């Protein structure tokens, strides 16, 4: 379409209009930086866009009328074309606003995600810390009671047990940097726990620990075995009055450190079920938090044996 205006006139018109529109866009982005309309107030975008486009139109008309006062044909065109100019201005400003709002929204969402991820990571670490340091209060108070009994009759043994309990507690209080330990280290700590339990239950409790060659150096999360063995003792010892042996077998299996713990149980009075017992569910949870896998802990019953198997992936 040709309107028959000179290039100067056309350029001037376009420069005046577009520079102002550019200014509008800048203005809009500044405004929105400080105030993002909420979902319900999109009318705000419409009103601001309409206001700015009208202002731009009036301004442009004023400037162009002043600058090109001798171009009568152009001025008529300018007067007649206001609806289309207003429309275009409005569309442009509106688009700009919507885009800016979207931009800020996306940024907000991203920040939100990051915050959420940070919170999740922190709570995961806190949960792991808590799970690792969880002690059954039962164990602690009963041990103290045993010490109290020994103080009167066999003070030497009482002192030894205080020593063992302290060493064990110290082990459970280790900081996060020692989250990973070798199987041998873990077994040392377990031994402390078992020594205490043996004082409590006397000759009734015996243990057989068998570590296959090469698996002693394999890595595992610390304080993982104690709750499992505690669970085994609970089912084995607390539910029978006979002597029991708890067996622990560790070997290397494919790329896993595999630890199998066996305890006898009395099917008449106890009914160990998969996942029950606080000890095992906390282990399941820890393994899940560390490895994102729910299949690393298995329990099964074989006759009157309750067998717990843990597999620790070796991350090399």
């Amino acid at each position, binding site marked *: 379409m040709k309107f028959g205006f000179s290039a100067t006139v056309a350029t001037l018109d376009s420069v005046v209009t577009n520079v102002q529109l550019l200014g509008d866009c800048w203005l809009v982005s500044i405004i929105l930086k400080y105030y993002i309309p909420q979902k319900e107030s999109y009318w705000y975008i419409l009103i601001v866009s309409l206001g700015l486009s009208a202002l731009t139109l009036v301004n442009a008309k004023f400037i162009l009328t002043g600058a090109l006062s001798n171009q009568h044909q152009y001025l008529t065109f300018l007067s007649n074309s206001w609806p289309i100019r207003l429309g275009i201005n409005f569309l442009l400003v509106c688009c700009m606003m919507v885009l800016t709002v979207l931009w800020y929204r996306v940024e907000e969402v991203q920040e939100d995600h990051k915050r959420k991820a940070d919170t999740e990571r922190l709570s995961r670490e806190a949960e792991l810390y808590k799970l690792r340091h969880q002690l059954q209060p039962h164990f602690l108070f009963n041990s103290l*009671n045993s010490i109290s009994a020994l103080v009167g009759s066999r003070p030497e043994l009482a002192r030894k047990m205080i020593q063992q309990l302290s060493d064990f507690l110290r082990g459970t209080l280790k900081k996060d940097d020692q989250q990973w330990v070798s199987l041998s280290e873990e077994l040392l700590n377990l031994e402390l726990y078992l020594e205490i339990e043996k004082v409590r239950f006397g000759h009734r409790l015996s243990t057989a620990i068998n570590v296959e060659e090469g698996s002693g150096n394999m890595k595992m999360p610390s304080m993982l075995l104690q709750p499992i063995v505690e669970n085994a003792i609970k089912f084995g010892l607390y539910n029978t009055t006979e002597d029991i042996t708890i067996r622990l077998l560790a070997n290397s299996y494919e790329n896993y450190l595999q630890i199998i713990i066996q305890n006898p149980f009395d099917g008449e009075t106890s009914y160990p079920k998969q996942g029950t017992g606080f000890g095992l569910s906390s282990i399941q949870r820890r393994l899940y938090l560390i490895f994102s896998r729910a299949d690393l802990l298995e329990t099964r019953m074989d006759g009157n044996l309750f067998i717990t198997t843990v597999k620790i992936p070796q991350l090399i």
Partner: protein
Amino acid sequence: MKAIIIDDEPLARSIVIEYLQSYPEIELAAECNDGFEGIKAIQQYQPDLIFLDIQMPKINGFEMLELLEPAPGVIFTTAYDEYAIKAFESHAVDYLLKPFSKDRFDKAIQKWLMTGNTRLEKTGTQSLLESAAQSPAQNQRVVVKIAGKIKIIQVEEIHFLEAADDYVKIHTKDGTYLKNKTMGYFEQVFNSQYFVRTHRSYIVNIQEITRIEPYEKESWVVILKSGAQVPVSKTGHAKLKTVLGL
């Protein structure tokens, strides 16, 4: 006066024995390792007082008390059991938290002597046991006495419960057993996801149900895998429908 100690840890028993030495009037009749031995000893010696641990092999202290009629005077000894402690506090029963001092032990004995070494009254025992029933072990199994023997019934083995005067009749595949509890007790203690009170006098294990049939106007029967038929009232029917997701 005769006393019996029931605790599965030898050292825990030895401290009670040591503290008891300053009470020559209290004779130690027996030391027991678990609730089974406890019941036998109590029947044999008829003690005036028992020191009773809660967490023990085979059956716990509460389950043991349930089987005794009448229950002797009890001083509970426990290391840590929030449910039990709550129950003791609300029933003014004396309890010793391990490890306990000689002073605390003396106070418990004094209190028991002062109250005229009364046995726990039947109603007192009942309500104590009912409030202690919140503890996890209690909703996993039921301990009953049959022909002088103790039988532990896992809740999974229960087909349905039936009210029978002051007792509840427990139907399992091995037969029926009587327990002196109320229907309300079982309704409260058992997991309501699996046990539904279908009728004033019946609670059903929903895993045993094969089908539900109309019986009369506004009443139904459930047919169990064992073939037994259990009445269902109007409200019971509504409950069944929610639990089964119908």
